[in-house]
């Protein structure tokens, strides 16, 4: 059994307090959109961090993150930083990784916050004012 089959895709529909999270192993794509103030952020982001870790370890293909996150509580910020750290380490080892953080142009605050995240990352980290589909269920 190949690891790609072992490794399930993640598909969490967003709610008012958790973002929609879609991890597509075959496409090497992780999407997250919406607000994030979960009751238990470890429970929510643990599998996501694991998924990223595993993908980066098992594959040599590129990994792309497509984000349209709005409000993040402190533990969600921490989880995002952990994910970006994984990407940075992979990038340092020559792996192609990239992030696109989309924000509503009416909310410049979100752009500023994305910039804070991008500050320590040397891999491609694009922050773009684009149309956002919040993918809420």
């Amino acid at each position, binding site marked *: 059994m190949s690891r790609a089959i072992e490794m399930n895709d993640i598909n969490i529909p967003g709610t008012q307090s958790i973002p929609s999270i879609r991890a597509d192993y075959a496409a090497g794509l992780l999407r997250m959109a919406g607000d994030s103030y979960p009751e238990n952020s470890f429970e929510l982001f643990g599998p996501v961090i694991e998924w990223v870790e595993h993908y980066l370890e098992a594959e040599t293909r590129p990994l792309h993150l497509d984000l349209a996150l709005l*409000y*993040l*509580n402190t533990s969600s*910020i921490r989880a995002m*930083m952990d994910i970006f750290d994984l990407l940075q380490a992979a990038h340092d080892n020559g792996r192609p990784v990239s992030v696109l953080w989309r924000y509503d142009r009416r909310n410049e605050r*979100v752009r500023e916050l994305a910039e*804070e995240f991008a500050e320590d990352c040397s891999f491609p980290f694009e922050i773009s004012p684009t149309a956002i589909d919040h993918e809420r269920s």
Partner: protein
Amino acid sequence: MNGPRRELDADVERALADPAQQDNPLRPLLAELWDAYRSHVQRMDRVTRLSDQFQAIARGEHLSHSQQFEKQLRQLAKITRISDRYQAMLHELNLALSHASTHDVLTGLANRRLISERLREESERCDRHGNRYCIALIDIDRFKQVNDVHGHDVGDRVLIGVARALESALREYDLCGRWGGEEFLVLLPDTKLDHALAAAERIRDAVHALHFDDLDPPLQLSVSVGIGEYHPGEGADACLKRADHALLEAKREGRDRALVG
């Protein structure tokens, strides 16, 4: 090894090799002592090397710990910074929402929700202290006609103009709000009827002074005002009812006037 010791070593080795000393009775003793000394030095060297290695490992660990610590400290500082900014964003959003939920979008005046709340508070305050307040209900005369003749965008301009005229005619602590449609409500705290009437006249003058020069036919605005004075203990609705009644009376008597209910 240092100089004097190396010299001593050489002297001893020379003495042991010297044929003239072969029969020296102390030579076997010196030879034994020499061997013991040599192995002792070797052991010392080994212990020193090992000790150095352990120290290097410990130092390395200390460095990596302090590096990790530094890294986590930086991370914590960053999380805190980002978290603070998110909270600031939420706070601003709350303020904006709170303003949006209590103010009229078109005129920027207090909306009915805020007016009702302030009326309730002011009534309770008056009930406790026996103070009085007055309410003035203000209705734009023949507003429907403005909309019919000039269109709704002009109607909106008129509403905004009247809102500014009301504000200009009032004191800072009076509350002025849009009660609905073309009707406004003014809450005059700590005010008796005669002063409320004077305020109503100031309002009527300010509205008369409004000009909309670009309109054809020209627009001459007026308002009708109904005033009610609050009696402690009666509740805001009773006072509102009197003001409403006075407003109806003012309309019935031909508009463009202020009456007390």
